[in-house]
Each structure stands twice: as structure tokens, then as C-alpha cells.
């Protein structure tokens, strides 16, 4: 492909940190016949949400026919993390992303490597992976996190796969454990997104952040289904699993369209519900869940 323009994007040292949303990884078509250069050299830390957004960025732009060149991170710890989470496996042809050889692969903290779901059968395979994860990691104090972890991944992956499998990239899942008692997972897709999906039935929900908040309430999206068959309850069940669990704290952050929504759970109670709107619109829906004992 003849490239008439190279568009440069750069990650900062903190781009991959848990407080960020991966905004620099823009899922929006560049001008025709341009190519993208993503500079990760300054990236100092990567969490599951950024990992998913990064891989979705590569897959999404490649599917649109855009060449993507990635400058790898200079930090060896970030390189090692990306390698053990399998970011560069089965990359599309239009993507050039070479990670240096990493010899030390401590995988004890990996719950779920970056997993891409493009079919419903792959959803079944995710269940098999989750079964192994629970068997290997959730014992002792961590046992309290089993149900909210499985509920979070299961319900959110079901949503993501349902909405994302018709998109160019499908759905993505990854999970990581920190210091044995805290885990972070991320689930995302590049499908229709919550606000646009809800507005099919509720056109008055013009604020994307408030639309996401509505989606977390019981019965909102279920109402659109003529068979009233209990759809649209994923976020409700996730919240319930977190409040039921004997864990010390948790949080959920959701980004879809121009909307963001987050809340915390402490000692069985939900706090700090916060819908907001951002100038940066994303394709699909991206969810980060953190659980601690």
C-alpha cells in the first residue's frame, strides 16, 4: 500500500496505568491511504484494560486496511508483561509489532492471557479456561473472589461476544493478579456500544454516561426484548456478585461511546456511582473490574 501520510500516536509513561482508559488508542478511521505509527517506547506500565485496547487497536485498524507500525516499549518489564500476556500472537498482516526476545517469563500472576473471542464456540472455550484459572489460583483468602471473578468475566464476556462478534475484531478478555489478593480484569468489544444500543429503545437517553448508568439498572435493556427473557441483566448480576462476596473492595469502570461510568463496592455496599461524558468517543464497550480481599 502506498502511504501518503503517516499518523503518529504516542503512549506516555502512564498510558497503561489503571487510572487511565487507554484514550490514546483511538478506534477511528484515519484518512485514506495513511498509515499509523504507534510509539510505545515511553510506556512504563500496562494493565489489562490497556492491553485489550492495544490489541483491539491493532486488529481494528488492520481490518480497515490501515498499516500499523508499533515501536515497542523500552522498559524490559513492560516488554515481559506484553510477552507473557501474548499481545503479539497471531497479529494481522498489516501490523508490524516485534517484541524483543524475553527470557524470563514469570507467569504466576497471569490469570487470563489476552483472549480474543470471535465465535460463540470460543465462548465455551473461555469457560474451560476459567475453570482452570479457578483451580490454579483461587484458594485460601482468594477464594472469596471466585464468584465475583467468574460472574464478572462470564457476564461481561457474554455481553461483549453478543455485541462484538459481528464487528471487525470480536471481543477481548484478560485478567491479572497483583500481590495475590487483588485482581484486575478487563473485557471489551468494538461492537455497537451501550449508548447507541439503548437508544434503539430509549431515544431519550442522549447523555452517553447516563445511558451506561441506566444499563446497570435492572430491567432496562430487558424491556426491549419482546420475549422478556431476562436479557440485559449482566451489569446487575455483576454488581450483586460483588456486593454478595466477602471481599474488602471492588470497582467497575465502563467506557462506551462518549460515556463513562464507574462505581465502587466496599463491605457489600455500592458507592461513588459516577456517570460522565468525555470528548473522546470509543467504538464498542470497555469494562475494567477490580476485586480485592
Amino acid at each position: 500500500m502506498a502511504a501518503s501520510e503517516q499518523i503518529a500516536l504516542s503512549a506516555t509513561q502512564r498510558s497503561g496505568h489503571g487510572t487511565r482508559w487507554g484514550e490514546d488508542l483511538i478506534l477511528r478511521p484515519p484518512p485514506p491511504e495513511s498509515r499509523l505509527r504507534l510509539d510505545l517506547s515511553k510506556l512504563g506500565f500496562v494493565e489489562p484494560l490497556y492491553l485489550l485496547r492495544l490489541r483491539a487497536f491493532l486488529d481494528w485498524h488492520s481490518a480497515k486496511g490501515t498499516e500499523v507500525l508499533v515501536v515497542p516499549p523500552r522498559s524490559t518489564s513492560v516488554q515481559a508483561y506484553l510477552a507473557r500476556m501474548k499481545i503479539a500472537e497471531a497479529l494481522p498482516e498489516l501490523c508490524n509489532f516485534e517484541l524483543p526476545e524475553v527470557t524470563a517469563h514469570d507467569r504466576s500472576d497471569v490469570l487470563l492471557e489476552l483472549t480474543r473471542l470471535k465465535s460463540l464456540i470460543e465462548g465455551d472455550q473461555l469457560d474451560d479456561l476459567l475453570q482452570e484459572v479457578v483451580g490454579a489460583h483461587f484458594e485460601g483468602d482468594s477464594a472469596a473472589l471466585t464468584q465475583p471473578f467468574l460472574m464478572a468475566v462470564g457476564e461481561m464476556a457474554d455481553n461483549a461476544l453478543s455485541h462484538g462478534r459481528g464487528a471487525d475484531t470480536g471481543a477481548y478478555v484478560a485478567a491479572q493478579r497483583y500481590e495475590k489478593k487483588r485482581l484486575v480484569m478487563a473485557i471489551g468489544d468494538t461492537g455497537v456500544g451501550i449508548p447507541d444500543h439503548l437508544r434503539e429503545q430509549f431515544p431519550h437517553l442522549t447523555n452517553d454516561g447516563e445511558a451506561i448508568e441506566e444499563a446497570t439498572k435492572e430491567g432496562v435493556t430487558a424491556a426491549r426484548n419482546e420475549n422478556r427473557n431476562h436479557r440485559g441483566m449482566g451489569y446487575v448480576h455483576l454488581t450483586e456478585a460483588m456486593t454478595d462476596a466477602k471481599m474488602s473492595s471492588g470497582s467497575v469502570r465502563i467506557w462506551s461511546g462518549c460515556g463513562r461510568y464507574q462505581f465502587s463496592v466496599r463491605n457489600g455496599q455500592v458507592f461513588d456511582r459516577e456517570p460522565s461524558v468525555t470528548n473522546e468517543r470509543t467504538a464498542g464497550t470497555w469494562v475494567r473490574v477490580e476485586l480485592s480481599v
Partner: protein
Amino acid sequence: MYVYLADRGRVFSMRDRGRRLLADLRDEIEHDDELVLDFEGVISLSHSFADEFVGELAEQAARGKLPHPEVINAAAPIQKAINRSFRARGIADTGEHALPA
């Protein structure tokens, strides 16, 4: 008919998996007068799966199309997911973990 869910896995997340499981078992279930769903060994059941499999079974039983599923050996979170599906479909809760009225 006796269905031991753990023969098919210990984690059930996807709504579509519940739909396919019901489709796979339907012919056998239809030709039996009783149906027992044994959840021993099952670690987790999403509400989506519970609704598409157990909830749908129970609703069809309420219409007289299939035998009513008797749920046994379900851990509390699993029974709760099942009961929530029953409640949403207007079917009576079952088991010791029935949702409050």
C-alpha cells in the same frame, strides 16, 4: 431423566451455551416424565446461562411441554441465579435459597 451438569463442565457463562445445551437435551427430556438437574461440582453459573437453560426449561414445563426441572446440589450462588431467572419468568422459586418475596 438425570442430567449431571459437571459432566459438561464446571463453569457455565454464555447465554448461547445454555440455549445449545437445551437444544441438545430436548429430545430426551421430552420423552421422560421427570427431570433432575444435578449441579454437584459446578463452580459457577452465570445468570445468562441459568436463564437460557434452567429458566427456559421451567417455563416450558409450566406450559406443559416438558417435565419440571428439579434442581439439586446447587451451591447458593447457583441456586440464586436460577431463582432469579424463575422470578423474572413468573415461576415459583425452588430450593432453600429462594429469593425473598
